[in-house]
């Protein structure tokens, strides 16, 4: 297990509110190895970003890690103070968020922001850092780097801004990258560039990547394994091939069924009936039971979990298609 870069065990994230405690992440365990890309998918609001934020030490109060541990290459990081965590972020863990504006300061030129980050994490001097900044901008596919390096964030399109953020995340050559919907705002060709870039980093530098995305096509072409989340819990974990082609969990099957096809015409897309329960109204037993066509008595009683191999589905459905 020495090549495990990220090791999350029984993570639980809570939001204390006036009306009680909301559990946004409920007992999640996952590992990412060197050079591996783990895809994270699941219902909007299922807790993917909160899992990522916990790893980055960026949970905003009142949100808090209530249980579990997070190790980075053997070092425990979930109990570090802000200063210690800040130096790990950027240097050992790179972050890419869906909203590029959270990572960019609108008042500074992008070149200056890159140079500052590079100098914070390396001992390059100012002009060497500027050269490195240009290289990174080229690496993420920004055209006419010499002309654009002194522009402000608002002068770039949404997709170009995101590529600048990716360049920022790569500055210090981190061992883990947490990418939360990095290609959501990007067109397919830039998306292909970014995923190719992430894959290359994994291959050449052994970087481990946690890739949160809604795009199953991207998952199918980029990730090694996939974790599916629902209502704060893991619904299914497995190789891409297993999860996409042979989903075991009824939620995963529903998810796969609702993707618009590039080949078939349908008047209406397939939907999973209903919506995910609010965090304060998660039913007893399996959180998916109100929407599940297979639910049996046990599903309303006991919470299904993925076994200690960390692979498979959290579902009482047996291989015969009936709840035991």
């Amino acid at each position, binding site marked *: 297990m020495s090549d495990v870069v990220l090791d999350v065990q029984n993570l639980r994230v809570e939001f204390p509110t006036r009306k009680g405690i909301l559990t946004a992440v409920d007992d999640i365990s996952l590992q990412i190895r060197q050079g591996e890309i783990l895809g994270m*998918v*699941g*219902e*909007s*609001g*299922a807790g993917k*970003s909160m899992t990522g934020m916990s790893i980055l030490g960026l949970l905003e109060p009142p949100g808090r890690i209530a249980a579990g541990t997070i190790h980075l290459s053997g070092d425990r990081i979930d109990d570090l103070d802000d200063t210690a965590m800040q130096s790990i972020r950027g240097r050992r863990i790179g972050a890419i968020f*869906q*909203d590029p*504006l*959270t990572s960019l300061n609108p008042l500074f030129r992008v070149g200056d922001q890159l140079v500052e980050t590079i100098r914070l994490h390396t001992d390059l001097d100012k002009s060497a850092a500027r050269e490195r900044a240009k290289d990174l901008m080229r690496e993420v*596919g920004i*055209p*006419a780097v010499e*002309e*654009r390096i*002194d*522009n402000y964030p608002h002068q*770039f*399109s*949404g*997709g*170009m801004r995101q590529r600048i953020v990716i360049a920022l995340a790569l500055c210090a050559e981190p061992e883990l990258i947490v990418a939360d*919907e990095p290609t*959501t*705002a*990007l*067109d*397919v*060709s*830039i*998306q*292909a*560039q970014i*995923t*190719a870039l992430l894959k290359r980093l994994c291959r050449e530098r052994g970087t481990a990547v946690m890739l949160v995305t*809604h*795009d*199953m*096509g*991207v998952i*199918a*072409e*980029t990730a090694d394994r996939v974790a599916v989340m629902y209502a704060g819990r893991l619904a299914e974990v497995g190789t891409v091939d297993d999860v*996409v082609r042979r989903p075991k969990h009824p939620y995963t099957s*529903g*998810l796969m069924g*609702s*993707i*618009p*096809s*590039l*080949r078939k015409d*349908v008047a*209406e*897309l397939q*939907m*999973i009936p209903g*919506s995910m329960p*609010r965090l304060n109204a998660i039913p007893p037993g399996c959180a998916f039971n109100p929407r599940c066509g297979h639910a049996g008595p046990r599903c309303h009683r006991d919470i299904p979990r993925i076994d200690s191999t960390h692979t498979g589905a959290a579902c009482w459905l047996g291989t015969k298609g009936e709840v035991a």
Partner: protein
Amino acid sequence: MNIRPNAILEVDALERRFDVSAPWLNRLIERKPRRTLRAVDGVDFAIQRGQTLALVGESGCGKSTIAKLVTGLHPPSGGNIRFHGDRDRLQMIFQDPFASLNPRWRVGRIIAEPLRTLRPDTPTEQVSARVDELLRTVGLAPADGLKFPHEFSGGQRQRISIARALAGEPEFLVCDEPTSALDVSVQAQVLNLMKKLQKDMGLTYLFISHDLSVVRHMADVIAVMYLGRIVEIQPTADLFANPLHPYTQLLLETIPDLEAPKRDRSPMGGEVPSPVSPPSGCSFHPRCPLAFDRCKVERPQRRPEVHDRRVACFAAEQGKTDVQ
């Protein structure tokens, strides 16, 4: 295409330039010239009432700029936009749901605002009933109206901006990446809802998405943009069956395909050119496998005698349409 009997929107020779010069003092000292970026460079299209026109193309090609020109958020630098509808009932769903939701307002107030603008004397109870209904329509709960935007996940915020747009009883809706932050099962619900509203109430959509399987499902007509221009415009089925422009063909090949994933996909070759100094002639020529001498000096136009103004390409004019 000259007769547009039922067009709700007609756009002719539309242009938008941005000044991206270095600051005045730098220009003076470093003797740098003024620089203009042509974000939208001579765009023509029309949308028929009750139909959906989709804009697709690489990040930075000018899609959001067109959306903002149509909604009046940017004044055009040239050309004209004729809207034959009720300007008050033109709404927009923004690409960036983070920036477009007022962080200090409760969600209920955010959603109620367009309704209050449209019908200032609606009684308060009626407004709040409508807000509750809209929240349910987008898969949220009425109680969510009391929360602030930061208490929601990315996809939930996108649903809030959809609810807000619908509150203004739009007849024309500009949707800039409306489902990009949603998981595929919620996306299916939103897209089915949009199609239903279109069928029941005759809504017209200008629809921007980088997800070509979503575009294929939603659009009647697709316009493919490259560097500020429309290089191809065709009814959806024709575009997928018989793409005419080399860029469209490469774009279609780059789609991540769940049904046939290509894990070693290479991104489209060549650097994305700069809109500040676009290549001469056909701006796609440095990356085009079919380029020949004429392409470097002359700019192709969409002409009536070439596939009925569907494509701007010299190779297509000569009947060559296959990049393989």
